[in-house]
């Protein structure tokens, strides 16, 4: 609908190009660097090498283009050119290939997330290098046990220490910084025991090396750091992906608007520059970005994403137009009644932030585990030290050594990897299946849901009507189509699609709100509403058009908004998973009941306003249900944000996509897989935490009893991390079989 769907729209391996919005004018986003002009665009739907070469090729052929480079991972297209090329042609070159495209505001794009990810990757590389090399030395020490001379051992330990020191200083910073920050606020997190273990292990090892002792823990410290950084890096990557999706959506929302200056010349400006009272031109096919009052022109307006009403509405001078509505037939000029930031969107964004606040209080399994884990680890290590020192009668040095090895071995390698690895595997798995996950904790929330609320238009149904009348003579249909070809009205399009290609009638005039008029084969014809053609409306529950040819009696042409092809199968699968379902739609009661009946959903509500949707949601949540909300419109956005978890189809409005936890494409089919994978992922995460706990039950007594030599610590740590990773990979196997 908006041309920003995650479908394989323009991808050669995918479906037909989207029909949606015309590419917006990016001129306001061009940056001048010397003689060069630069522009960044986000491109939606590019997925493979074919897309890459087609897009770069098409843009590169424009005159004056110097570089055009598309980042396939993030969908960012950087273009640089010299001369006076109209930047609109760049956007058009991409959008005519069938990809969604929008200007990217690079001022807000100096992404801290990317820097964080990169510094974690560097730290990971350094820690990996140090671990490998120290392990090489350690293996010689372990292997040479009993044979190696003391001086050689001391030398190898010293060498390990020389490698370990810069590594800890460099790669340990993320943990030290975070631990210091929370300690200043007199709280703790997982980084506190990590930092403590690293520092203690290093200092004890230095002391032992100087003393010429048998064991040094440099290898354990570096390995610990390496494994923890892997977890941290994966976590950062999930978050950056989610964040870059949000940024793309924001970029698509920061559309440009055509403003008319005092003398009537149109000028393209950013939507945030629109002030109340500005005159705006809304071309056919364009989406209104601000609320406005129409001053001139009459047109049909598609408000399906705002209100859920599936048929267009006639709009003329003096009528209000909400942000999000699409102008279908004639150009409209109007006056903005509010800035983009506080239009109808503001009311909805209030609902969004209310929902987000509620969600931020949700605690992930990992958080809960850590809050239990940290005090436990600390007190165990402390008790071990005190026990050996005061009761066991060991010297201070031995007691500290045992306590430190306890701290190292209990340190949460497996725990740190448990959740991120699962999230990355599950998100990758879902992405292949057509669903895009926006945050890691979404998995846990989706897994908990037991009730689904569907919006109707565009979610359960295709959102585009289809011609369904039978027994209409072919010549009549062809004549009607000659009129219909002149209009962008969805019913006209459906009629044209049914009749196929053909000529256009003579002198076609569109009368917004009524219908079309023109001459076919010398006979005056009318296509439109019942009153326009002089007919009596029939009892059809869907939409209908009437066609009157010459003096013949008007014929009713019936249309229906088709249910998504796979809807009933999907609903069957979901209810087999123990989900209950209902429909809450803003559309007319007949349309909703019809769909509900066909799909076998007994509970439905029609004519629901955004507030009604939110109220219904609160009612259900008050009754202890966990609701998964699925919707695509502006009217669903509040409910999407408030629901326990939510998903939006790829064709949904930007706001709805950014309010939901997952975006899916290609019909409803990805939904059962989404639920299934989320549940499997949650189970695997719990198993991983269970395993981490079980590992500690075995390892801690060994450490407390003083048997945890560096060799044991190394085996235990790498072994436990490996098990957790392998377990996470099981998600792929599980869902492969069942979905």
């Amino acid at each position, binding site marked *: 609908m908006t041309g920003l769907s995650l479908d394989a729209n323009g991808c050669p391996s995918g479906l037909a190009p989207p029909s949606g919005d015309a590419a917006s004018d990016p001129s306001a986003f061009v940056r001048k660097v010397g003689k060069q002009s630069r522009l960044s665009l986000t491109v939606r739907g590019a997925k*493979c*090498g074919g897309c*890459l*070469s087609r897009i770069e*090729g098409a843009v590169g052929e424009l005159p004056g283009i110097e570089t055009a480079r*598309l*980042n*396939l*991972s*993030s969908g960012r297209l950087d273009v640089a050119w010299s001369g006076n090329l109209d930047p609109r042609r760049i956007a058009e070159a991409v959008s005519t290939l069938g990809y969604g495209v929008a200007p990217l505001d690079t001022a807000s794009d100096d992404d801290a997330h*990317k820097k964080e990810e*990169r510094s974690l*990757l*560097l730290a990971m*590389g*350094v820690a990996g*290098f140090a671990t*490998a*090399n120290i392990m*090489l*030395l350690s293996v010689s020490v372990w292997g040479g046990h009993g044979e190696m001379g003391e001086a*050689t051992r001391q030398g190898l330990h010293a*060498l390990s220490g020389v*490698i370990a020191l810069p590594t800890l200083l460099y790669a340990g910073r993320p943990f030290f910084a975070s631990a210091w920050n929370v300690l200043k606020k007199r709280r703790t997190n997982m980084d506190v025991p990590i930092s403590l273990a690293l520092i203690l292990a290093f200092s004890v090892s230095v002391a032992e090396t100087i003393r010429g002792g048998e064991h040094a823990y440099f290898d354990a410290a570096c390995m610990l750091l390496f494994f923890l950084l892997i977890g941290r890096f994966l976590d950062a990557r999930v978050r950056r992906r989610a964040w870059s999706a949000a940024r793309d959506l924001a970029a698509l929302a920061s559309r440009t608007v055509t403003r008319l200056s005092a003398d009537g010349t149109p000028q393209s400006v950013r939507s945030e520059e629109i002030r109340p009272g500005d005159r705006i031109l809304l071309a056919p096919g364009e989406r209104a970005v601000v609320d406005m009052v129409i001053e001139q022109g009459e047109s049909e307006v598609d408000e399906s994403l705002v209100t859920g009403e599936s048929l267009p509405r006639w709009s003329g001078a003096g009528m209000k137009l909400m942000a999000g509505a699409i102008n279908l037939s004639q150009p409209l000029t109007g006056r903005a009644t509010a800035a983009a930031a506080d239009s109808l969107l503001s009311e909805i964004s209030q609902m969004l932030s209310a929902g987000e606040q509620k969600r931020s209080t949700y605690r992930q399994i990992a958080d809960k585990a850590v809050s239990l884990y940290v005090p436990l680890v600390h007190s165990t290590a402390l008790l071990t030290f005190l026990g050996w020192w005061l009761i066991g009668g060991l010297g201070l040095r031995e007691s500290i050594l045992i306590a430190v090895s306890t701290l190292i071995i209990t340190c949460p390698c497996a725990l740190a990897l448990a959740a991120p690895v699962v999230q990355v595997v599950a998100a990758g798995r879902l992405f292949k299946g057509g669903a895009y996950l926006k945050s890691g904790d979404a998995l846990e929330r989706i897994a908990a849901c037991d009730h689904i609320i569907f919006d109707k238009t565009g979610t359960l149904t295709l959102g585009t009507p289809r011609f369904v009348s039978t027994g209409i003579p072919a010549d009549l249909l062809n004549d009607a189509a000659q009129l219909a070809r002149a209009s962008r009205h969805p019913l006209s399009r459906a009629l044209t699609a049914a009749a196929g290609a053909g000529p256009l009638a003579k002198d076609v005039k569109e009368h917004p709100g009524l219908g079309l008029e023109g001459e076919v084969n010398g006979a005056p014809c009318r296509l439109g509403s019942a009153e326009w053609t002089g007919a009596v409306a029939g009892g059809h529950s869907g939409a209908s058009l009437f066609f009157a040819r010459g003096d013949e009696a008007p014929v009713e042409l019936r249309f229906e908004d088709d249910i998504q092809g796979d809807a009933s199968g999907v609903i069957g699968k979901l209810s087999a998973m123990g989900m209950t379902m209902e429909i809450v739609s803003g559309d007319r009661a007949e349309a909703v009941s019809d769909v509900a009946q066909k799909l076998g959903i007994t509970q439905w509500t029609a004519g629901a306003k955004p507030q009604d949707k939110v109220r219904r949601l609160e009612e259900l949540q008050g009754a202890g249900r966990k609701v998964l909300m699925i919707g695509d419109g502006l009217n669903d956005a509040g409910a999407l944000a408030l629901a326990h978890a939510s998903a939006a189809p790829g064709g949904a409005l930007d706001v709805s996509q950014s309010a939901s936890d997952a975006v899916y494409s290609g019909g409803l089919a990805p939904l059962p897989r989404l639920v299934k994978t989320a549940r499997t992922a949650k189970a695997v995460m719990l198993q991983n935490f269970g395993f981490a706990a079980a590992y500690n039950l075995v390892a801690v007594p060994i450490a407390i009893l003083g048997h945890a030599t560096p060799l044991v610590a190394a085996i235990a740590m790498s072994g436990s991390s490996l098990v957790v990773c392998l377990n996470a990979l099981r998600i792929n196997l599980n869902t492969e079989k069942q979905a």
Partner: protein
Amino acid sequence: MSGLLFLIPIALFMGGLGLVAFLWAVRSGQFDDPDGAAQRILISPDQPLPDRKTAQE
């Protein structure tokens, strides 16, 4: 045992080379677009063979 005196520095040096290469690769943005990089090697536009006569001249 004296072999260690040579072998350990050599091992460290070679490991260090790998690390430097990795740091360079990350800093120069080679991990920014792994998907695109994987596809780019497959893209080579068809070009006519160079004309031998003109090449010799």
